[in-house]
């Protein structure tokens, strides 16, 4: 047993650490910090959806904010107009958005990378206006106010902590599903299409089927995330889903690391905390020269956000996951070398550092 534990690949240990971190977080964090991490997980779910589409299937989308909007409005309308319990609306929002995403995937088949980016971008641009149109359903620009989620079974926890555990549970299931998806036949097909769709078709992969499927699954994730987003902010309105949300998601997926399972989690952390850091942490740093600080303040937080992004892309071109892999590789070779120096022999089990 101990031997098996010793031989477990290091990423299993990492998963354990991450699990301990997320389960234990609310017991050490303040109510507000717990809420922040719930939002991180919501972003992570949306980015996982985007990751399946962009990272694993090679189709670009600048319009996932629109799918989130659909999910959020599905929940808001079902709760507000039809008084359905919000928990029941979350899968409904996911399935409806998934179906719409699947349908959107059909015309997307005809568009190559750049044009698909433009088409999805257009979707993101028109979304706020589309929401305003059916005023009787969406309440137009007034938006829909929801009540904060109430913990079930009379649990003595705050609404924020409940939201956090709800989101954590859903995120765990969705990440596990994504992990299974990419390891098996559909995942191999998706990657084969990404790397060369002609070759994939020649090998018998149903290119059109898998491409639309990827869009559908991706939108399903975004719909779930949008639904939780509406529940978390307790308010949905057209301005909640600007174009910048879609771009934020794409940035998050790239910063986290495309085509990997832990990447979206790092992406969620980046998508939520980078704008806050650039706004609140950067101006408070006394070591940044005064001229630069005042120029940044004048131009607004977008400048420091951009600067942070550039730094990340220089030092971690493959995203957070790439950085960790590189770092681990360096560490491993160092430790191996240390073993050599100490005994004059190669370490007995080089794989388990």
């Amino acid at each position, binding site marked *: 047993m101990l031997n098996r534990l*010793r031989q477990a690949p290091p990423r299993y*240990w990492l998963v354990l*650490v991450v699990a*301990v*971190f997320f389960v*234990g*977080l609310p017991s*050490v*964090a*303040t*109510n*507000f*910090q717990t*809420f*922040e991490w719930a*939002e991180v997980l919501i972003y992570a779910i949306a980015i996982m959806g985007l990751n399946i589409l962009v990272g694993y299937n090679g189709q670009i989308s600048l319009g996932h904010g629109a799918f989130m909007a659909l999910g959020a409005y599905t929940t808001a309308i079902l709760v507000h107009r039809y008084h359905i319990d919000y928990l029941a609306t979350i899968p409904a929002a996911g399935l409806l958005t998934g179906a719409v995403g699947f349908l959107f995937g059909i015309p997307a088949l005809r568009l190559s990378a750049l044009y698909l980016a433009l088409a999805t971008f257009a979707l993101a*641009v*028109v979304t*706020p*206006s589309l929401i*305003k149109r059916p005023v009787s359903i969406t309440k*137009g*620009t*007034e*938006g829909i*106010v929801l*009540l*904060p989620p109430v913990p079930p079974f009379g649990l003595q926890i705050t609404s924020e902590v409940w939201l956090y555990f709800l989101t954590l549970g859903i995120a765990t299931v969705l990440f596990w599903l994504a992990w299974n998806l990419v390891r098996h036949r559909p995942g191999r097909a998706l990657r084969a299409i990404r790397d060369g769709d002609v070759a994939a078709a020649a090998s018998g992969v149903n290119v059109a089927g898998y491409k639309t499927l990827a869009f559908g699954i991706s939108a399903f994730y975004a719909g779930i995330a949008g639904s939780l*987003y509406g529940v*978390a*902010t*307790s*308010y949905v*309105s*057209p*301005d*909640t*889903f*600007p174009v*910048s*949300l879609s771009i934020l998601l794409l940035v998050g997926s790239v910063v986290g690391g495309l085509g990997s399972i832990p990447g979206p989690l790092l992406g969620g952390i980046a998508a939520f905390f980078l*704008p806050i850091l650039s*706004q*609140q942490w950067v101006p408070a740093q006394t070591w940044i020269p005064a001229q630069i600080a*005042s120029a940044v*303040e*004048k131009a*607004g*937080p*977008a400048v420091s956000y951009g600067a942070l992004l550039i730094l990340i892309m220089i030092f971690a071109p493959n995203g957070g996951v790439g950085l960790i892999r590189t770092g681990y590789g360096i560490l491993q070779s160092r*430790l191996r070398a240390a073993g050599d120096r100490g005994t004059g022999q190669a370490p007995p089990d080089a794989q*388990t*550092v």
Partner: protein
Amino acid sequence: MAKTGRRLAALVTFLVALAGCGGSGNTPVTATDVGVTSSTILLGNTIAQSGPAAAYGTIAYAEAAYFNYINSQGGVNGRTITFKILDDGYNPANTVPLTKQLVEQDQVFAMFSGLGTQTQTSVQAYLNAKKVPQLFVATGATTFSKDYSTNTWTLGWQPAYQGESRIYAADVIKNHPTAKIGVLYQNDDYGADYLKGLTDGLGSNASMIIDKQSYDVTAANVTSQLVHLKASGADTIFLFSTPGFTIPALVTITKLGWTPSQIYLNSVSAPQVYMGIAAKAGAALQNVTSVSYLKDPTDPQWASDAGMQLYKTVIAKCPTCNVNDSFNIYGVAVAYTMVDVLKQAGSNMTRANVINIAANQLNESNPFLLPGVSLKTSSTDHFPITQEQVITWSANAWHLQGSLIDERGTLK
């Protein structure tokens, strides 16, 4: 085995560090109420400093400049005001976490002058549930002061949009009783609020409105709507639009060779800078009318006015503020009211007392508002400013016409 030990050590270190991070930022404040110490009062604000409404961002800097000025004069009853500004980019999804941060982590005493209708609606329920004053929201949406009975921790400040357009209605009925009115309005709550006020204000004369045209904020231009309005035979035009549409609308009216006998602009679009841009782009700006309640920093008649001189002293300390931008005098004026309320609260510096004074007992003449404008609230009226004066544009400047028109009591 040594390696397992090293891994465990790393894990433990990580968890200890994690516990260390989590526990911080939660020190309780010992004072009369959250956010107040014996020497400071902490106020929070969310505003758009990036995104589509970034032009409003300067309001918060002007407010901060006024608080700094008050602090340099000894503060409010010996307490200095700390003002924390966060950028929400005009997006309600950002306003919610940022407001929670200000309330729960930074522990502000009150939220002050948060900007935007949707953004402030998104946190209204939260702030009321937490009993945190949401004071003097920077939007003219009528709902904020109108719904005081259900949201007793929220209060507006500027004249409500409906009240403003009732003043236009009063001016039309009095001075242009035969006008044939055409309305261009933005297709959202903002435009609808204005239109409702005009229709209600005209009352039995509502048939004077012969045509209404709307546009969406995402529209490229408003030319077809204006062509339609011209064809309808209207001779009096109302532009209930945001500056980004008002300016091209004024230019288009001139290009169509159309000279309506009156063009009414809402006060949001009226600042001198926008008129300058419209004039440069070729707008004739004939017969243009609006209303105002603030002193215009570019108007020479206030050059020796004490309030205007104080404004210029205050704003000189704000490096990013343009002294001629009327958003800045707005910021200084609303900050003046905030300081006034805090001064009245005196030693009883609790959230409940402050919101009570603001919502029920306000009676102030503000040096940055037009002479005669008074801010009043009572137990039955929670609209602080209801008076405005008609202004007309000529010789590259706004000129005050007639006297103040008061709509107090018409909005409930």
